[in-house]
C-alpha cells in the first residue's frame, strides 16, 4: 500500500443493497430484447418465433434465414454430428477448413456420441484413425483428446471423473462454438448480448470487490444475493 492510497474498504450491507435493488427500474421491453437477441443469435428459431408472437418482441432478423443454422445446431445437440458436419460443408466449406479447433471439437463430440451409443469398437477405430492424427498435428489438442479417449476405460461413464464430457452441456458447448463460427462467416453477431451482460456482471463484481464489501450474486441462475464477503 502506497502513500495516498485509500485503506478503508467501503461496506454496503445486504439489506441496503436489497432495498436499492427494488428502486431500480428496468423496462420490460429491454428484458424482452435481451432474451430475443439470445434466442436469435443462438439459432433457436422456434422459441424465437413463439416468443415473438407471445410477447410482441420483434426478432430483428428474418427468422427463416437462420433455419439452416438452427438445423445444424439441433443436429449437434441431438448427437448427430455427422449430419451437422455435412450441412456446414454444404453451407460454407471453408468454416471447418479454417477453424481447426472447431473441427477437432466436432470430431471429439462424434467420439463422445459413439461412446454414448456403446459402439466401443467403432469409437476406438475412430479415435485411432481420425482423432489421433489431429492430436499429433496440434499438440494443444492432445490433453483433451486423451481425456476423451479415456472415456473408453469406464463402463459407467456417467459416474466417471470424465462425466462432464457425457453431459448435455458438452453438446451445447460444441453446438455453440459451431453456431458462432457460422455466424461470423455471415457477418452477424457471434455472441448473444446476454452473454456479454453476464460477463460484465462477473467482471464488475470483481472490480468492485477490490474496494467495496458488498453482497454478490454468485449463482447467476437464481440471481440470489449472497452474504457480504466478511
Amino acid at each position, binding site marked *: 500500500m*502506497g*502513500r495516498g*492510497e485509500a485503506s478503508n474498504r467501503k461496506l454496503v450491507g445486504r439489506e441496503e*443493497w436489497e432495498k436499492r*435493488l427494488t428502486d431500480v427500474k428496468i423496462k420490460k421491453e429491454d428484458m424482452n430484447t435481451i432474451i430475443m*437477441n439470445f434466442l436469435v443469435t443462438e439459432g433457436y428459431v422456434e*422459441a424465437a418465433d413463439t416468443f415473438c408472437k407471445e410477447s410482441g418482441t420483434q426478432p430483428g432478423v428474418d427468422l427463416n434465414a437462420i433455419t439452416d443454422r438452427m438445423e445444424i445446431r439441433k443436429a449437434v445437440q441431438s448427437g448427430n454430428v455427422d449430419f451437422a458436419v455435412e450441412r456446414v460443408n454444404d453451407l460454407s466449406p471453408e468454416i471447418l477448413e479454417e477453424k481447426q479447433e472447431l473441427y477437432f471439437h466436432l470430431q471429439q463430440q462424434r467420439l463422445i456420441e459413439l461412446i454414448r451409443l456403446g459402439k466401443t469398437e467403432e469409437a476406438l477405430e475412430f479415435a485411432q484413425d481420425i482423432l489421433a492424427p489431429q492430436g499429433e498435428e496440434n499438440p494443444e489438442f492432445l490433453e483433451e483428446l486423451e481425456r476423451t479417449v479415456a472415456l473408453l476405460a469406464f463402463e459407467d461413464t456417467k459416474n466417471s471423473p470424465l462425466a462432464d464430457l457425457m453431459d448435455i452441456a458438452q453438446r451445447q458447448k460444441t453446438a455453440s462454438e459451431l453456431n458462432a463460427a457460422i455466424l461470423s462467416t455471415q457477418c452477424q453477431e457471434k455472441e448473444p448480448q446476454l452473454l456479454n451482460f453476464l460477463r460484465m456482471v462477473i467482471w464488475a463484481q470483481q472490480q468492485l470487490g477490490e474496494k467495496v464489501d458488498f453482497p454478490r450474486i454468485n449463482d447467476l441462475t437464481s440471481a440470489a444475493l449472497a452474504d457480504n464477503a466478511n
Partner: protein
Amino acid sequence: MPPSRYPAPSTWSRSLRGSASNANFLSVTGLGVKYTGPGQEDAQAASIRADHPVPADCGLYMYEVKIISSGKHGFIGVGYAAPDVALDRLPGWDGHSYGYHGDDGFAFTSNAGKGQNYGPTYKDGDVIGAVLNKAQRTISFTKNGMELGVAFSNVSEEVLYPIVGMRTPNEQILANFGSSEFISDLRGLQDDAAKQIQSQLQAVSVPTKGKAGSLMGELAFNYMLHEGLLDSAAAVARDVLGDVVQVTDQDRQQQQAQHSIQAAVEAGDVDEALRLTEAAAPGLLTTEPPLHISFQLKVLKFIELVRGKQDEAAMAYGRAELSKAAASLPDQEELQDALSLLAYDVPEASPCGNLLSPSHRAHLASSLTSAISVRQGRPAQSAIHRLLCHSVLLSEELTAIDSPAASLINMKDRLAEITNGPAPFQ
C-alpha cells in the same frame, strides 16, 4: 470516456516547486518552465508539479512536455509523483515518483539512484508525452508521438501529479495539459486502453453448466415463466434445454390467475382485482400494517369513479376509505394528488393526470402480481430482472469509487447498449 467529476491539471502550480531553498531555481511563465539556478550538483535540482492531480476517475491520462532547450546538460525529467514527494529532486529519484530522463533515456523510480534503460534520449524540439493508465496501473511515454511502451507497472499510488524537473542552467520546457492539440494520439491511446479492458471482459468465463445444461436458456425459461409467457417458456424448455425442465399445470394455473388480476387492474375493475387477489393470496391486502399496494388500489378505485364522472360517489368513497387508509402512510402527498383530480373539469389534463393513464395502471398491476408472487413464496422478480438491477447498482458503485476501468469502457452506456441490441464496440 465520460466527463470527469474532478478538476484536471491545467497549469503548473507556482507554490509547488523546488524546496524552500531552491524554489527560485525555476522560473515559471504560464505553461513554460525554465531552470535558472546554479545547476552545479544534484542537490540543486528542482521540480514543479501541476495544479491538480490526475482526476481519480480518469482511466487514461496524458500530458505533453515540449523541450524548448536542453540547456547545459539536458538533465530533464518528465513523469508523475505522489503529493508528498520532495521537489528538490528530479522525478524518479524517490519512491512514489516516476520519471523519464532526457539525458540518458532512463526510467527512474525509487531512491535507489539507478534508472532502468528505457527509451531514447530527448533534447531540444522533442515532445514527450507522459501517459498514466490507471486501469492497468502503468506509466508509459511517447516521444514525438511515437509510443515507447510501458516504463513502470504496478503503479499503486492513488494520487499522482504531473511533474517535471531540471537540474542544469537554461534547461527549458513548455507543457501542454490539453489546452492545445497533442502531438500524440490521445484518442488512440484511450481506445487501446478500452480495448484492453474489453478483451479482459471478453475473457471472463461465465459458468455455463447450470443444472439444466444452459445458464442462458435457464434464465430465458425463468423469465418467460415469470412473465406468464408460457408458450415461450415451453418452447425454450424444448428447444434450448432439451426438456430438462417443463412448464407445469401449476405454472399454468398461477399464470391464469395472475393474468386475470392484471387484466382487472388494467381495466380499472378494482373490486374484481381485490376479489381475485384474495383468492390467490388470502390476506395479502388486509395485513397489518397495510401494504402500500392496497392503498394504491383504493386510490385507483377512487380514480375510476372520477373518470366515470361519479363525483359524489368518489367523494363519499374518498371520505370513507381513502382518508382512513392514508393515515398509515408516511406522507399524504399521494392522497392529495388523487383528491386533486376532483378539482378539474378535465382530470386527464391536470397536473396529476398521469394517475389516469394506462401506464399507471399497468405499473400497479405489475406491483400487485409481484406482491402476490412473494406471498406465494416465489421471487418477486425473474432472475434476469434481478441481474439487470444488480448490474445498475454495480455500475453506480464503480462510478462512486472512481473505477478507472469502468470509466474507460463507459460501463453505464455499455449496459444501456446491451438492452438495445447490437452495438459495435467503439
